[in-house]
């Protein structure tokens, strides 16, 4: 089931505030992985949570310290979409 980038972002936001206990004020679309101090294991755990919630394999491959949450959510949304829909998401 394709999930919109907005819905993925909300899921990421909720996971970071509840499971990772990060202050909600710090979690903005333009906040970077580095600013949030999410290291490789935190990203791995986030990927596991998102994989289970979304029912598709989510990987943190390609995510760097300068990746924003917005960019991360968009990448995850692409992983939830069939190939044609992913291209449509890319075009947005």
């Amino acid at each position: 089931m394709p999930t919109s980038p907005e819905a993925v972002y909300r899921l990421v936001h909720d996971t970071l505030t509840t499971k990772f206990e990060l202050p909600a004020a710090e979690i903005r679309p333009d906040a970077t992985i580095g600013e949030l101090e999410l290291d490789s294991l935190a990203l791995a755990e986030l990927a596991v949570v998102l994989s289970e919630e979304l029912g598709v394999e989510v990987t943190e491959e390609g995510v760097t310290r300068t990746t924003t949450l917005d960019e991360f959510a968009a990448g995850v949304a692409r992983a939830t979409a069939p190939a044609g829909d992913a291209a449509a998401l890319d075009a947005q």
Partner: protein
Amino acid sequence: MTRSCVVEALAGWVPPLRVTNDQLPESWGVTDSWVRSRTGIGSRHRAGHGVATSDLALAAAESVLRGNDSVDALLLTTSTPDHPLPATAPSLAARLGLGPIPAFDVSAVCSGFVYALATAAGWVAAGLAERVLLVAADVYSTMLDPTDRAAGIVFGDGAGAVLLRRGEDDEPGALIGFDLGSDGGHADLIMVPAGGARHRATGRSPADGDHYFRMHGSEVFKHAITRMDGSVSTLLESLGWSVDEVDRLVGHQANARILKAVCERLGLPADRCVGNLAEVGNTGAASIPLALAQAHADGRLRPGQRVVVAAFGGGLTWGSAALVWPDLSHTQVIPHL
């Protein structure tokens, strides 16, 4: 005739050389707070020059055996055998003076202790042995790449030993359930590439570093938390235990964040997850018996508590086991801790 396998005695042993986070190589550029926040580890023990797995195993085994203890079989679980061939267990049995008893190694990397517990339980159930000595020992320092900061921070050397005997299903200490599994499709995630037949069959010399331990940390983290959570859940379901009924979970002491995530996924309060990662790091197959021994010695494990042990390791392998904690015949305080 009942042929349950019961834990009678337990001991742990770590070498005297303790390496704190502040004593890690300067070139790694790490601080004590950095290491603690990312791994939960404050120190680890190293065997040092000339000390091999059977030496640590011997110390743990001597601690668990009393003078007149008879043993019908010896199992040693390790990823760092003294030699690729033969197994280390017969030499350990000989050094212990146990006579010509069956003795063999069990290889399941960091899940080795749980796999070996199940093997010992099977031997007792089959009537092959009444009393089994199970020793878990690893000297990871012998296969760590000096430039591999991630592994060097985490791994320590150590050994644990349990004496198991035939007993009744309903007595404390009886191993009352197991869940075991493997997924060789991810064998590459935790591996020493050279030293075995796969590499020798190529006829090529090993590339630099191929004899060192390699681990893909993030991927291992993902598999570890899902497999340990899944294994414990399956075990509890088979026993008819709810999570609330688990008094203590002693997981493989790999990384505090793995253990925290497993507890959270199970819905187990953090104070029921006990171990000694901070003091000894990841001691491979030895980690669970070492953690059990220390938790028993300091009172975090008490007779009557429902205890689950859970492991995950290279292979990939995983497993869990359950017992009601017994009033052990003798209590061991781990030397050097």
